């Protein structure tokens, strides 16, 4: 089966042609356009990157390329020609035969797409066997071969594990193997590395790129991360509001974007704040050790200084203890040992022992404004509560302060009667900032506050936070895994790994000449806006022998 199809897959002939695609989504009792008239074509073996903000319609286009629309969406116009036949006009049964055998899909969070009750191997070969492409035994042997190519550890036996027994990065590669099992002509990747840590992301990107090249598979790669798409795609298409902004070869797109909007997208990650020396420290954490109820130690012997009126960025992968440290500082998880002092006074370790005024002076902003804002409270109620609770403001005084706060976060008072569900992600995060500011805090802990936002919105929020710090002199502990964010906002950097502090120091020092090996690994794993970055990095790591086959 393989020889014939590989020959047919000569690079250069048209595989997929999308013409005048229109997709609508149903919300608020009517149909809204999501994609309005997008054209593109894809040759065999070519990788097309789709980028844009959320709501630009990139995922919807990715699905429409398989002739599919999510529940609540419908394809209203256009044609999707796959190898000469229109996917939209054929019967659902025929489309289903194509999906999984000639067209495959890799989703963002593999953990949600794997059935936890079945072994990886069974799920990997399921479609190939169901479509009658290979016998069970053949498919199993082929899956092991794919695991090998995707550089999964112990390829012979990993298939016998259940989804919860492997890491997120491994699961994402297993899903790629699943998509590859039928040697499809086209794979749609929908943000396959967004949920992963940077160090894991490098490995997954390298594996995906290798199999796509090996099998000469065409791919549509949907992402919001420009640096990632630069590594993967031959061509890039920029989308906005469901329309094509521009489309060009990757190198040309990166060096000479034709449209203003593309240039703004490109400029986002260049925001950088010069660091400022601190005079004294507002928060001192000494030898803190903390554990959750199960007894697993999450932080061991952590000492950190937070300079007054400055920003300390806590950097590390998921599971490194960054967010736990935030919980220790707020008192939600009292430290087992060690001491914390705030403004030269010892800080009671437990939330219950802290006075109302002490609570007021330390505020927190969360990663996801969706869960940090009560969906049943209006913007006014959200902001007014700390004013009433801490400062006892009432009536006109309170209303005036609300107006000032709205002005500070660059929103106007027409938003006051909205519920969170009626605001965009960036607006919701601004409301969370206003709620924290309403308490007149001295220290704000920002836990991944920009991670859930689009890059342009991220930049706005970061600029807002920098401005507020300059005007109000508030100190930030900024938890993030994103080095670009660190560059934008931090004065000092603390690198954490497995519950320990690896390094603390001024930003430029840590970012340019890291002392610890882990910091170097972390920094070198951050994708750069250079199409040769991944190739260069892999070659370099191979020379150094740091990237072992096990991943």
């Amino acid at each position, binding site marked *: 089966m393989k020889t014939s199809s590989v020959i047919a897959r000569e690079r250069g002939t048209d595989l997929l042609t999308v013409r005048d695609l229109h997709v609508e989504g149903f919300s608020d*009792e009517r149909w809204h356009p999501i994609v309005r008239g997008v054209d593109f074509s894809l040759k065999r073996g070519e990788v097309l990157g789709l980028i844009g903000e959320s709501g630009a319609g990139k995922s919807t286009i990715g699905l429409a390329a398989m002739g599919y629309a999510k529940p609540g969406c419908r394809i209203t116009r256009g044609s999707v020609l796959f190898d000469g036949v229109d996917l939209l006009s054929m019967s659902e049964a025929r489309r289903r035969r194509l999906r999984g055998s000639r067209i495959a899909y890799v989703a963002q969070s593999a953990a949600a797409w794997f059935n936890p009750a079945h072994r990886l191997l069974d799920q990997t070969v399921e479609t190939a066997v169901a479509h009658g492409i290979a016998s069970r035994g053949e498919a199993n042997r082929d899956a092991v071969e794919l695991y090998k190519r995707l550089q999964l550890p112990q390829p012979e036996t990993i298939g016998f594990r259940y989804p919860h027994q492997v890491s997120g990065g491994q699961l994402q590669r297993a899903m790629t193997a699943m998509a590859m099992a039928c040697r499809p002509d086209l794979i749609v990747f929908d943000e396959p590395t967004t949920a992963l840590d940077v160090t894991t992301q490098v490995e997954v990107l390298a594996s995906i790129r290798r199999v796509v090249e090996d099998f000469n598979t065409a791919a549509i790669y949907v992402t919001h991360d420009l640096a990632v798409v630069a590594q993967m795609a031959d061509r890039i298409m920029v989308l906005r509001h469901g329309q094509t902004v521009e489309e060009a070869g990757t190198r040309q797109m990166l060096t000479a974007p034709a449209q203003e909007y593309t240039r*703004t997208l490109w400029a986002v990650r260049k925001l950088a704040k010069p660091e400022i020396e601190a005079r004294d420290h507002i928060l001192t954490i000494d030898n803190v050790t903390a554990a959750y109820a199960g007894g697993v130690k999450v932080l061991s012997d952590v000492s950190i200084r937070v300079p007054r009126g400055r920003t300390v960025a806590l950097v590390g992968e998921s599971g490194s203890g960054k967010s736990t440290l935030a919980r220790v500082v707020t008192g*939600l998880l009292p430290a087992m040992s060690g001491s914390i002092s705030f403004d030269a006074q010892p800080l009671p370790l437990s*939330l219950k022992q802290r006075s109302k005024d002490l609570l007021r002076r330390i505020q*927190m902003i969360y990663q996801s404004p969706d869960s940090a804002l009560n969906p049943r*409270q209006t913007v006014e109620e959200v902001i007014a509560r700390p004013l009433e609770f801490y400062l006892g403001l009432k009536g006109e005084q309170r209303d005036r302060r609300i107006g000032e706060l709205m002005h500070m976060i*660059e929103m106007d008072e027409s938003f006051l009667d909205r519920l969170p569900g009626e605001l*965009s992600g960036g607006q919701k995060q601004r409301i969370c900032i206003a709620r924290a500011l309403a308490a007149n805090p001295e220290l704000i802990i920002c836990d991944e506050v920009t991670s859930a936002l689009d890059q*342009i919105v991220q930049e706005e929020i970061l*600029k807002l936070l920098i401005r507020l710090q300059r005007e109000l002199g508030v100190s930030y502990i900024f938890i993030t895994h994103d080095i670009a964010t660190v560059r934008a906002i931090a004065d000092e950097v603390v690198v954490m790994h497995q519950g320990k502090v690896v390094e603390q120091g001024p930003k430029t020092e840590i970012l340019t000449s890291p002392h610890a090996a882990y910091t170097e690994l972390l920094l070198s794993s951050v994708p750069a806006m250079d199409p040769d970055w991944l190739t260069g990095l892999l070659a370099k790591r191979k020379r150094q022998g740091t990237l072992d086959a096990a991943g």
Partner: protein
Amino acid sequence: MTSAEPVIQTTRAPRVRRTRRSRIRIALKKAPLSAWFGMGVILCYAVVALFAPLIAPYRETQVFSEAFAPWSHEFAFGTDQLGRDMLTRLIYGARNTIGIAFITTILSFAAGVTLGLLAAMYRGWLDQLLSRAVDVLMSIPSLIFALMLLSIFGSSITSLILVIALLDSTRVFRLARAVGLNVVVMEYVEVAQLRGEGPAWILRKEILPNILLPLIAEFGLRFCFVFLTIAALSFLGVGIQPPSADWGSMVRENATLITYGDVTPLLPAGAIALLTVAVNFVVDWFLHSTSGLRDEN
């Protein structure tokens, strides 16, 4: 401030917010026929129960000479075993049975929701204590348990309400605790804790508004069950006591007529069935429209 175009984009004026009234109008417009039927029936029952003295042709306990009279112009549905007008008794029965069921349901919700949310919020020993107590209560068949309690405390209306409310609040407790557990882990509850809010405020302002919809739907269903329990207890003779009219005991007292091919005792039974079906129609529609499920087409 200095940031130019993108800021304007995020902070642009939002779309006009719908008023509560227009949202309700849209929801009603999409209501299926069964929901309309249910709402119509419930409205009729409510009117009859509220204005019973004005609607009923005679007084509640007025006795006429002829017992078990057939249907006629004078007595639309005949008279019962003591010679009281059946139609009048039916109308007053709506008032007694529905009124008591309503008060009982409200009581069981007040107790069940408060305790359920406290258990969800504090977990630990309080949760263990309350949950196990509820398990014990639920392990005994509720009708038998109610019969036992009523024979101990006597079947006055107050004890009837309290006993049924207690037994019913166990179900409400379980629901409130389950949906409450999903909300207490949300970050906005943590924000309130960090702010230093007390438990009463967190319960009332942060948690309760977010679990109101399933609770309202459950209220409809619980109301039906309470209503049926009261009717069943009355049928067994320990519920609402004579001479107050109520549908359960009316079925029992006139049951002998069935043997003679007279459908009169089926009228109060039918009234009970109709209300139960109507409430369920409305609850079904409510659950469906608030569950966020989209019809796939």
